[in-house]
Every structure is written in structure tokens, then in C-alpha cells.
């Protein structure tokens, strides 16, 4: 019964929730993106600095469940120093994986731990929250 739960709440996710990476408020960042789920009230701010064509710094702060917090933490780790033009495919790959449960072998094994979110339809949104917000921001730019 709880095996299912252990698939969602793997140690990796609980660890990121307990001690998220790049967890820092930086209201003076160049871009402050809000990742907000009005259904549950979870809300993170993503603080992004851009240097030319690359992300120079990315941190986040806010409130959310273990799944959304851990997925934001993993997102932050994955975009440090990244070229902006790589972001859309990174976001799409992750969002597709969470939505459909298909694993396109994400380069980062920690990203793959969120695959199991697709088995919990009401929790998919948690895993996708910040990734979707960053994707929308990229689209609107």
C-alpha cells in the first residue's frame, strides 16, 4: 500500500524538501517569476539573473508541498549557468515526463524521480509548478 507512496516520496525528494538547494530570497534579482497554484495556495518566487545568453544565477523562495519544493530545488540546480536557448527543451522534457509518465531519460537522475508524480493525478501539478512557470516566462519573453 505504502510502496506507492515511497515511489512518490523518494528520499531524494524528501531531502530536497528538507534542505532545498539555491533557497534564497533575492528581491533585487533581474527577474522575479511567480510560480503559483491557486487551487492549493502554493507559491514560490524564482529569482533569475541573466548574463547575455545565459542564466547567471537562479534561486527560489516560498511555500509549497514536498513535491513542489523539491521539484523547484531540482529545477534551480539544473538551470544554473545554462544557456537560455536550452531551457525550453529542458522544461518540455520534464513536463512531458510528469504528465505522461514517459521517461525520456532526463540527463539528471534526480529529475527522473518526479516521473512517479504521474501516478498521482492530483499531484502532477505540484511537480510541474515551477517548471511550468519558468516555461511560461520564457514563452512570454
Amino acid at each position: 500500500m505504502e510502496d506507492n507512496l515511497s515511489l512518490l516520496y523518494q528520499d531524494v525528494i524528501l531531502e530536497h524538501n528538507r534542505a532545498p538547494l539555491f533557497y534564497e530570497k533575492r528581491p533585487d534579482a533581474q527577474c522575479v517569476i511567480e510560480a503559483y497554484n491557486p487551487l492549493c495556495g502554493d507559491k514560490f518566487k524564482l529569482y533569475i539573473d541573466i548574463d547575455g545568453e545565459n542564466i547567471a544565477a537562479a534561486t527560489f523562495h516560498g511555500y509549497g508541498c514536498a513535491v513542489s519544493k523539491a521539484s523547484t530545488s531540482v529545477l534551480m540546480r539544473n538551470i544554473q549557468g545554462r544557456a537560455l536557448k536550452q531551457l525550453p527543451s529542458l522544461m518540455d522534457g520534464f513536463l512531458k515526463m510528469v504528465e505522461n509518465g514517459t521517461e525520456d531519460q532526463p540527463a539528471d537522475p534526480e529529475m527522473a524521480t518526479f516521473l512517479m508524480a504521474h501516478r498521482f493525478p492530483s499531484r502532477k501539478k505540484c511537480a510541474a509548478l515551477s517548471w511550468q512557470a519558468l516555461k511560461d516566462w520564457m514563452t512570454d519573453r
Partner: protein
Amino acid sequence: MHTASLRHDFPLFRHRPELAYLDNASTTQKPTAVVDAERFFYEHLNANVHRGAYGLAEKATAACEAVREKTRAFLNAPSARQIIFTSGTTASINLVAQSFAAERVKEGDAILVTAMEHHANLIPWQQVCLKNKARLLVAPISHEGVLDMTAFEKILRSESGKVKAVAISHVSNVLGTVNPISDVLALARKYSAVVLVDAAQSIATHSLDVQALDADFLVFSGHKMFGPTGTGILYGKEKWLDSMSPTVFGGGMIRDVAYEKTTFASTPQKFEAGTPNMAGIVGLGAALDWIENIERENIERHVQTLLAHATARLQSVPGLRIIGQAPKKSGIISFLLGDIHPHDLATFLDQRSICVRAGHHCAQPLMDFLEIPGTVRASFSIYNSKEEIDRLVAAIEDAQVFFGRLAIK
């Protein structure tokens, strides 16, 4: 109360016997009688209301009108004309906000709500205020979740006649607080404010006599009292209903129509444009019968027993904080467990077939006031048992171990 045998009366539990359904503040399950009544309508009575000049349509109309009368008796309303069928509490409140408040609340006037309202009893008034340049005033509550009656009266007094309407829930869907509704109504009357009572959370457990209360408007949903979704009631004083103009137009609500103008039918028809949810209304009638048969006092007594048991058991869980500590509560208990997010806990409980609600429960301003992001909420009904609460508590204790496993290492 033999809750085990009552449980058999609910088809959903026959199909899902494993469920501990503790989300009754969201919606209750439906007894066989209600499901059968809807089915019976479609199998034996289905025709449009108030339209056909044939026997079947007359019977269908009579079935719906019988529920109007039944609802009148349930609320002890003076007349069945004062019972309007809507799609639910939300629709009933919006009707009053649009047809009543929007017409009467002028620039500089005010509408008074409390700090514990559901969005459905907040946003409709807020929007009227924004449109009419009126003010939305909020009566404060304590951190225990008790309405501050002194502050409430002070607002009414200092506004001296500017507060045109008061909207208040009888029972808070988040905190479980039972508001002193008679006192609220008496105070409002003293200052000539018209009161809407949102009885969504009390209709199944509290006897509500609209004449004894002298309520101006009282609203509720069918689906929170064992009835079908998409059904609801608006009760109003005749003098208000007669003076209100409809805001939804169409068939079934007119007296005379020409291209230049339309004269409307009188209440209740003028507020019921279009084909109503007839099967639902008939199901609602069956729900009213079902409740009367069990008797509301018995439902309330059972729910209070469960509340006392749940409060005692949950209080003994280390790190668990009960949100809402009013002395008078209904069968609703909100809580937070350490730093475990409500949704994570709800997902854990779901794996053990325990259904609870997690989140802000459509009361964001209340969450802001309490400085919490949301809660886990367990809410009880007649078919719940102490064993289910014990299951809940055991699962909560296991969840603490499960989510805390890395911190312990």
C-alpha cells in the same frame, strides 16, 4: 445511532467499503433514497416543468412543487413562494448580491461580512461593493476562531445605518465555529441591516426556523445534506423577494413578453429562468425526508460525539496543531501536522483510503489572517465512526514517521 447499518444505506460505501470518508464539509454521500428518487423521476415523471398541458408534465411539475412545500416546512417558512430553487449556495448568494444588494447599496454604503467566510460568501459582496463604490467591511475573529461580537456591534453602531447588508455563515467550513446566529440577527436588526445566513455547513445538523430566527435570507446547497449536486435553496422574506428584480432572464419566469418589454412572473418563478434541475429537486426532496426520518438532533449528536473523540485523539499527537478552537464547534476539525504540508499528508492518508481535504478551503483571507498556508480538514457525518477517526490518527502518526525519516537518520 447504528452507524454501521446506516452506512449500508449509502451505495458508494457498498462499492467502496474501505473508504473512511471524512470530507463531508465538501460534500456528503448520497443515500439510496436520494439516488432512487432521481432515477424514479427520469423513469416515471420526466417532462418539462410548468410547460406541457399534459398529464406527465403536470405530474413532473407537481413533484417539484411538492419539494418546494417540503422545504418550506423544513425551514418553517411562512409560504412556499419564499423558497427559490437554485443550483446551490453559490448561486443563491449571487442572486441576493445581484438582485438585492446591487440595487440598494449606494456609494458610501457598506456590506458587512466576517473574517471566516467562504469565498462564495465574500466575492459576490466584494464585487457589488467595487461596482457601487461601497465598502466591504469585515468583522474580526479571534485566533481561536470566534467571531468578535463586540467589534461586530461596534461596526454596526459606528456606521449608523450605512451597513445595508450582513452576510455570515452559520458554521465556518474551515474552523467549524458555530456562530451565534440569533444574536447576529438581533444585532443587525437593531441597526436595520438585512442579513443573509449561509447555512451550507449547518443545514444537515441544525434545526433552522427562519421565522424564529427572523432571517432575511437563508441559503444552502443540496449536496452537503445528502442531496444531489446542482441543487440549492434561497429562502427570503416575502417583502424582499417581491421587491427584487430578476437578473437572469429566459423562459419560465415571465408574465407577458413583447419586443418592447417584458413583465415578469412573481416570486419564486421570476428567479427560476430556464429549465430547472428537476430530477435534482426531486432528489433534494428525498434528502429532506431522509434527514427528517433520522432527525437532525441525532445527526448533530453523533457528529458531536465524533468531534469530541477526534479532538481528544488529535490533541494527543505530538506536533499536531488544531486550527479553530471555538467553544461551540460543528463536526469540522482543521489541523496542521508539524511542518508536513497539508497536501503531502492528504496524499499519505489517501493511500490508506482516508479522504480528507487539504488546502485553503476557499477561504484565503482567513488563512492569511491565521498566517497559515492551509490546513488538513476532517469533517464528519452520520455514517462516520470512532473507528474511522482512530484509523485517521494512526495514519497521521505513521505519516510523521514516513515524512520525518530523513531527519531522524
